[in-house]
C-alpha cells in the first residue's frame, strides 16, 4: 500500500481527486474510514500545527493515533538506535505512519523500510506534500477554479520549500505566475526551465504594487531576514494596506504560517485575508488523503 512522500508522486487526476474530496469534507461529509485503525504520528521534530491537523483528521475519520511530538523527549534520540531500526519497530504498532523528520529524505527512507503506508509530514528542507495540497485546495476553494489563476508569489523564492513544491504542482493547472522577489532570491534556473517546458507563463517583479491589481491570489512566504541584504529591501516584500488599494474583489492572500513581519496583523481584518481558512483547509485535505489511502489501498 502506497502513502504519499513527494508531490511529484501525484499526477493531475490524483491531485484533482484529492481536492474534490477535500471539498466534500469541508462541506460536512462524515466518514468512519479509519474505524478500528491505529495511525502512528511520529514527529522527530516539533511541528505542533501540522501534527494536530493530522491527528484531528485521523480522529474525524474514527481512527486513533499513537506517537510522539518531539523525539528528543523519547528514548529514540538517546539510545543510539539507527533510524531504520526505529522506523521498523514503529511500523509494527500501526496501520499507517505519519512522519516528520529534520533530515531530507527521511520519509522516502521510511516508506522503503516500513510495510505500512507512510505519509510525509515534512522531511527537512525537502518536501511537505500535504502543505502543497492544502495550498492548491485553498486557491481552488477561494477562487472556484485552478485553471487560469493569476498567482503572485512573493518573498524568498530561492530557498522556500513551500514555494518550490507549489510551483512544481501548478504546472498541471495553466496558472500565470508573478514572481515578486529581490534579484538574489529569485527562483532557480532549473525550476524556471521546468515551468517553461510545461507551458506556464511567468514574469518577474520588484514590488507588489506593480502587479497587485492583476492578481487573483498572492502567496506569501516567510521573510527570513538574514537572507535579505538590508532592511529597506525586506520592507519592500511586506504586505501593507496601501498595496491592497486596487486589488480585484476576488483577491485573496495565502500564507503557509507561521508568519513574520511580511504579513502584519492589520491585514487580518480585510476581506483578502485567507490564511487562517487556508490552515483550516489542511484538516480537510488530510482527511481526504487518509480516506483515499484506506479506501483504495493507495494514494497514487
Amino acid at each position, binding site marked *: 500500500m502506497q502513502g504519499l512522500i513527494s508531490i511529484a508522486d501525484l499526477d493531475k487526476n490524483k491531485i484533482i481527486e484529492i481536492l474534490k474530496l477535500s471539498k466534500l469534507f469541508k462541506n460536512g461529509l462524515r466518514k468512519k474510514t479509519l474505524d478500528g485503525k491505529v495511525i502512528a504520528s511520529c514527529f522527530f521534530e516539533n511541528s505542533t500545527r501540522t501534527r494536530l491537523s493530522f491527528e484531528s483528521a485521523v480522529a474525524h475519520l474514527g481512527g486513533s493515533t499513537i506517537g510522539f511530538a518531539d523525539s528528543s523527549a523519547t528514548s529514540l534520540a538517546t539510545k543510539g538506535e539507527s533510524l531504520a531500526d526505529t522506523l521498523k519497530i514503529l511500523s509494527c504498532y500501526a496501520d499507517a505512519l505519519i512522519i516528520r523528520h529534520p533530515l531530507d529524505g527521511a520519509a522516502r527512507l521510511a516508506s522503503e523500510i516500513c510495510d505500512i503506508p507512510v505519509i510525509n509530514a515534512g522531511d527537512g*528542507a525537502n518536501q511537505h506534500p500535504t502543505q502543497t495540497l492544502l495550498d492548491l485546495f485553498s486557491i481552488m476553494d477561494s477562487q472556484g477554479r485552478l485553471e487560469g489563476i493569476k498567482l503572485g508569489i512573493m518573498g524568498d523564492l530561492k530557498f522556500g520549500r513551500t514555494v518550490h513544491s507549489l510551483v512544481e504542482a501548478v504546472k498541471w493547472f495553466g496558472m500565470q505566475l508573478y514572481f515578486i522577489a529581490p534579484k538574489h532570491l529569485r527562483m532557480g534556473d532549473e525550476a524556471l*526551465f521546468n515551468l517553461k517546458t510545461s507551458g506556464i507563463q511567468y514574469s518577474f517583479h520588484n514590488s507588489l504594487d506593480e502587479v497587485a491589481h492583476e492578481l487573483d491570489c498572492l502567496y506569501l512566504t516567510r521573510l527570513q531576514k538574514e537572507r535579505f541584504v538590508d532592511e529597506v529591501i525586506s520592507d519592500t516584500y511586506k504586505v501593507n494596506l496601501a498595496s491592497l488599494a486596487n486589488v480585484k474583489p476576488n483577491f485573496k492572500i495565502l500564507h503557509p504560517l507561521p508568519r513574520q513581519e511580511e504579513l502584519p496583523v492589520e491585514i487580518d481584518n480585510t476581506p483578502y485575508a485567507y490564511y487562517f481558512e487556508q490552515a483550516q483547509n489542511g484538516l480537510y485535505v488530510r482527511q481526504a488523503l487518509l480516506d483515499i489511502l484506506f479506501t483504495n489501498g493507495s494514494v497514487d
Partner: protein
Amino acid sequence: MNDKNHIGYIENGINLDHIPHGNAWYVMKVLNLFNSHSQAGIGLNLPSKKLGTKDLIKIENRVLTQNEIDAISLFCTGSTLSIIKEFKVIDKFTLELAKVVNDIIVCPNKRCVSHQHVSRFNTFVNRKDITIVKCHYCEKEFNIEDISQYKF
C-alpha cells in the same frame, strides 16, 4: 603502438579503455585507487582513433562490483571494460550510463538521510549535455563533477 606497450600487461584484473579524455582522474577517485593496494597503470592523453585522445586504466587484482561499475559509468559512457584472467580477456563489454547508482556516491547534502543508510542516485543527462545525479532521498540534483566524496 598499442596500449600494452604503454603501461604493461595485466595478469588478473581489469582493463578500462576508451575513457573520455580527462575522466581517468574521476574513475581513480570513485574506485579509490589512491588508497588501495592494487597495482594500477594509468594512461593519460593517449591517441585514439575513436575519441582522438583517451585515457586508460589497468588495475591488477581488482574485481569490480556491479555498484562500482554503475558508478564509473558516470564518467565512462562508451568505454570498454575488459576482465582479465591469466593474461586472457575473459569478458569484455561497453559501459552505458547506469540509470541508478547504489551505495557508492556520498550525497553532498549534509542534511540528507542517506548518510544514515545507503545512498541511491538516479542519473540523467541534462539539456546542456551534463551528467546529473539526483539523490533518491533528498531529491537534490548534482553535477557529477561536483561529487567530492565516494564511499570507501
